[in-house]
């Protein structure tokens, strides 16, 4: 079995003391930041990104992945105990999980979320191990037009799934694409949109951009509209275990959620948010007792929590095999990989098998660590919720500033961070969600390059996108997605889905 050989390579690479240590640090820090109300995985990743830069590539990727699902998991804890979703994918957990907590079953809800996530994480890891290599070999048949079409599909999916107005999301993606083009044109060596600033010759730096847009704007947002203080529901350790009835309800839901999440994660534009909403809807549809939903249905916790974790893992597949991020979080991951000097794509698997498989193995290890650090230490995380925001935000801000400074001592980087804070603030005031912008920013140069190559191959004939079966299929999917946005019925469901937040 080749898969097991690969996984063995991975566990060898990820199992070194150093990597285990960084995996632990990543999951702990991720949980720490994720637990804080109002900070979802995107700001959490942005804030913690700089501390991974000094490490070697594998350790840094392991740590980043750890931060990601740590933040994801921390978000669920806050949702259940405080009814404050830290991120979009925890919203549905909020609905049922918090109701369970109010009935005194907070411990059970937390345990179900943790164990469901762990199970989903295991399946997700196997999924990546099993589907990674075949997908990578398919990826080798991808040519420029196919890549272009795939990126187009990914961007359109990101628009479909973005919060709020569709038109604004389209504009965000486009602005991101344009920002991604700033710097030296690879083809001609000419600088574009640098305004004569040498700091922009190599393009806009990723870190000041994400920290400004997500980390700092988040702080200002919270200062302008302080979230109402809510008391966390206290839990005692002995209440932690779900009873038989709850286990019976949770297991099938977790299985369904895991399957759904694993599949949705692979799709372009898919990911944790889509998976948790889809799973919740599914559970609500197939249950025999729909009346319980909204009042603490166990399936409504087990399903979505498993689904979002499975999807969080499998959404690494497109990134690692095709080199294309499927959602804004993966775009941040890709940004981090590029900073580490790794161009994500099918080549990683053959040239750096230790890196690829090490990361896959570390996901499983990280998930195990999450269960171990979360369940017994839940009390500590809850304590964290009582740290007053007036002390928290200056510390987060300091962390952002040090992060930028330690990766580049160039004073221009601080200026850039200030510029993006102001820009993000304006966007926030105008009701624009900046998440799709990161995706555009990362994909901008790639899209241009692939468009250019495609048109060189076809001598300027755009029919090349339709004549190739792979790109034609992807374009048909893109058009279908566009129709979905325009189709009123779907639009209504989409709006309703986001209403629940």
């Amino acid at each position, binding site marked *: 079995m080749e898969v097991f050989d690969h996984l063995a390579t991975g566990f060898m690479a990820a199992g070194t003391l150093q990597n285990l240590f960084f995996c632990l640090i990543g999951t702990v820090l991720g949980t720490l930041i994720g637990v804080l109300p109002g900070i979802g995985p995107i700001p959490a990743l942005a804030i913690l990104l700089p501390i991974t830069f000094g490490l070697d590539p594998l350790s840094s990727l392991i740590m980043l992945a750890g931060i990601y699902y740590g933040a994801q998991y921390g978000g669920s804890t806050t949702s259940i105990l405080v009814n404050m979703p830290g991120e979009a994918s925890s919203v549905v957990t909020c609905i049922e999980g918090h109701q369970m907590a109010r009935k005194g079953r907070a411990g059970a809800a937390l345990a179900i979320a943790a164990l469901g996530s762990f199970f989903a994480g295991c399946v997700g890891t196997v999924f990546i191990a099993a589907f990674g290599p075949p997908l990578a070999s398919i990826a080798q048949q991808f040519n420029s037009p196919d890549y272009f079409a795939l990126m187009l599909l990914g961007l359109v999916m990101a628009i479909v799934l973005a919060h709020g107005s569709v*038109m604004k999301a389209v504009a965000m993606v486009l602005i991101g694409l344009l920002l991604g083009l700033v710097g030296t044109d690879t083809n001609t060596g000419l600088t574009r949109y640098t305004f004569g600033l040498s700091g922009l010759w190599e393009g806009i730096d990723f870190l000041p951009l994400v920290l400004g847009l997500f980390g700092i704007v988040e702080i200002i947002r919270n*200062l302008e509209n302080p979230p109402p203080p809510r008391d966390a529901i206290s839990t005692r350790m002995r209440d932690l275990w779900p009873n038989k009835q709850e286990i019976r309800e949770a297991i099938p839901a977790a299985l369904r959620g895991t399957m759904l999440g694993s599949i949705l994660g692979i799709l372009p534009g898919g990911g944790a948010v889509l998976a948790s909403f889809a799973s919740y809807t599914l559970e609500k549809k197939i249950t025999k007792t729909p009346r319980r939903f909204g009042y603490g249905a166990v399936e409504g916790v087990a399903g979505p929590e498993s689904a979002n974790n499975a999807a969080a893992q499998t959404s690494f597949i497109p990134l690692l095999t095709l080199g294309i991020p499927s959602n804004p979080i993966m775009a941040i991951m890709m940004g981090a990989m590029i900073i580490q000097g790794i161009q994500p794509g099918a080549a990683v698997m053959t040239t750096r098998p230790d890196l690829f498989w090490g990361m896959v193995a570390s996901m499983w290890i990280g998930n195990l660590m999450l269960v171990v650090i979360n369940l017994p230490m839940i009390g500590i995380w809850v304590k964290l919720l009582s740290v007053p925001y007036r002390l928290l935000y200056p*510390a987060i801000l300091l962390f952002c500033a040090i992060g930028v400074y330690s990766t580049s001592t160039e004073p221009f980087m601080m200026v850039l961070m200030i510029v993006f*804070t102001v820009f993000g603030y304006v966007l926030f005031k105008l009701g624009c969600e900046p998440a799709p912008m990161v995706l555009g920013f990362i994909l901008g140069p790639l899209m241009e390059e692939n468009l250019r190559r495609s048109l060189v191959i076809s001598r300027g004939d755009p029919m090349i996108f339709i004549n190739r079966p792979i790109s034609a299929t992807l374009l048909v999917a893109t058009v279908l997605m566009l129709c979905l946005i325009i189709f009123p019925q779907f639009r209504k469901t989409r709006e309703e889905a986001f209403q629940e937040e």
Partner: protein
Amino acid sequence: MVIKSPQDFGAGILFILFGAIGLWVGSDLNFGTARNMGPGYFPMIICGLIMLIGLIVAAKSLAVEGPAIERIQFRPIVFILLAIAAFGLFIEDIGAIIASILLIMFAAYARKDVNLIETVVFAVVTAAFVVIIFVYALGQPMPVWWGR
């Protein structure tokens, strides 16, 4: 002309401006042809699309009711930006300790009702923490105290 959705109207104008500036700044880039795309080809298309979306969003804001733009509160954003600027200005020459303390102090004043003593204590403790963790534990190259 009545603006029914101020937020969308503002966003529309922002997009139009963004696209226009993009077109204007990029106007000296060679557009090229589809067969041989110049450095201006892709950016010009994107800028055009951004302007188009801006026009649609702005036009819609005249017809469809939407949320008002929330009042801008100057205190948080101004103090947060000052905090970052202070850190950026002083880290290189005066060092991480003073820069961190300044950042925390400025940031704290982004809220009203600041408890000065608490803030000073917190700032000093955090600065010490930063130096221990980042400079000594993680070995980040950072001047600690007057360039050392």
